[in-house]
């Protein structure tokens, strides 16, 4: 509990940093004042903080939290530490959906909302395929599901290469940049939706905290402990996948968050899901907000894709923690 409170305050600190650092540095004090009491409509500081930074930071918390939560849930039901939201082809499906939209120019004729929409449809189709292919007569086979997911993910990425090989270089540029991920989303409605859905899934996931803990012993033992593992796995799979699908469609493929954050928490605090679920959400939010600060300031005024930062920093921090843990033993 104390750990969660510490992380919550760290998240607040990360948000404050994210709001005050940038091309124009604003003191955290005046940031808080502006958020609470508003500012001059015409002033540049207020414009920057309310219209540019706040949406980005909120989206960072939502997407970082959601991806880590999806990661921790999926690792729990698969009992496989290498599973992350994107292992099962969710990002492949979303990328394919977006690539189809860009190649056909649908976002030009119908509006840019087509990009997240088609991304979500792509992710949803993949989730549906993985789910139905691996269910047999009402029972679901976890190992089958994982393999199916990996295979479908390969097919999706090949299909995407097919699209990229046959399209014009302008479209190619658009697809590649979308894949690299960004928190620069002008549509505030989408940001609110992502935040609400991810918080809702966090709350719902706590209904399953006991079966998740029981599943650590294995599917059979959990069944003997009185949990209907079949239902639990299905519901959690669908929840986590849809959550990941929404994240990818709004902000592109931001890798490593869903894989690394749950591992870091397990290394630091153990594997109790009562702590892990909320902990992953908070730490994921902190990590993504800070990564975004780095992405937009490190080569300022140019901007790096956020996936670059999460991959490098996340991987390094993880390796460091692992080597320290080994030394400790």
């Amino acid at each position, binding site marked *: 509990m104390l750990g969660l409170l510490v992380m919550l305050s760290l998240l607040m600190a990360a948000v404050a940093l994210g709001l005050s650092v*940038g*091309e*124009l540095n604003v003191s955290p004090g005046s940031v808080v004042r502006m958020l609470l009491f508003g500012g001059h*409509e*015409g*002033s*540049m500081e207020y*414009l*920057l903080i309310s*219209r*540019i*930074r706040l949406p980005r930071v909120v989206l960072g918390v939502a997407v970082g939290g959601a991806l880590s939560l999806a990661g921790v849930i999926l690792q729990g039901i698969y009992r496989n530490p290498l599973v992350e939201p994107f292992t099962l082809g969710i990002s492949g499906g979303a990328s394919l959906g977006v690539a189809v939209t860009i190649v056909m*120019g649908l*976002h*030009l*004729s*119908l*509006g*840019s909302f087509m*990009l997240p929409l088609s991304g979500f449809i792509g992710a949803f189709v993949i989730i549906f395929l993985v789910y139905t292919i691996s269910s047999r007569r009402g029972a679901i086979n976890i190992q089958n599901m994982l393999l199916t997911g990996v295979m479908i993910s390969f097919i999706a990425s090949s299909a995407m290469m097919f699209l*990229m*090989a*046959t*399209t*014009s*270089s302008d*479209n*190619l*540029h658009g697809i590649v*940049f*979308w894949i690299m991920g*960004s928190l*620069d*989303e*002008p549509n505030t409605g989408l940001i609110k939706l992502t935040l609400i859905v991810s918080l809702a899934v966090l709350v719902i996931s706590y209904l399953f905290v006991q079966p998740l803990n029981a599943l650590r012993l294995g599917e059979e033992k959990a069944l003997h402990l009185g949990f209907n593992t079949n239902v639990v796995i299905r519901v959690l799979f669908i929840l986590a996948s849809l959550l990941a699908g929404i994240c990818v469609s709004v902000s592109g493929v931001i890798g490593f968050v869903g894989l690394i954050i749950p591992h870091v928490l397990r290394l630091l605090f153990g594997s109790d899901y009562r702590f892990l679920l909320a902990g992953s959400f908070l730490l994921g939010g902190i990590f993504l907000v800070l990564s975004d600060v780095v992405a*937009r300031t490190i080569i*300022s*005024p*140019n*901007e*790096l*894709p956020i996936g670059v930062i999460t991959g490098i920093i996340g991987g390094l921090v993880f390796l460091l923690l692992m080597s320290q843990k080994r030394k400790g033993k």
Partner: protein
Amino acid sequence: MKKFAIRFLALFFLIVVALPAHAQPQRIISLAPSLTKNLYLLGAGELLVGCTNYCTLQSDTDAQVVASAMQVNYEKAVMLKPDLVITTTLTKPNTIDTFKKLGVEVLVYETPRSFDAICSQFIDLGEQIGKKAEAEAIIADARERLEKIREKIPADAPRQKIFMQIGANPLFGVVPNTFMNDFIRFSETDNIAADLTIGSINRETVLIRNPDIVVVVLMGLIGEEEKKQWESYASLNAVKENQIYIMNADQACSPTPLSFIEALDELIGKIYLH
């Protein structure tokens, strides 16, 4: 040994003189939409036998599609018996090598970094296909039009700061050392991204540098949406001055000398004569 060398030199000389200095290509494959446009502009459409599926043809029977943006269908290309392939540095080196091994001459043009480069590439292309005079006439005309367009700028007009956007999500702007920067140079405005070398730019930076003019060079609805997005920032100078414009991306981004001039004319009209 000396005798041999003399004979060899003589033979060499004979061959060089006997061969036509530059056999003019009769069958051309273009691997870049902009070069296809240039060929038409030079009146050499009938020489074109192959192109990419992104080239705009004046009629479907002009040429066959032999390539996508990334991949060339060599068999189809060879069956067209080309004697010249024209392309840009965006083409993979492997593709260029393959054509050379097949005995086809390949002309590779760099992405032009200025209007002058567009012009000199155009003249070079004209020279290579035996239309030098036509090319020079077109360029002379274009330069004359350029001067006339620049005269439209009022002498007492204050210098304004400009941001030219060529990509959305992530935001991408025009930076120096590109031919698009010449739109800014010729329109006597100052690029707010003048210190950048890569076009990816923070939205925040653009707002702080507070341009007086924002030009959105994007196609379709995305352009409209970006324009609305900029218009929602009330404290931006460009919003106060009501100077957020959309520019035809198709015309502005693919560099033929003529389309450059037309796009510039439109831009200067919007900035100074609105």
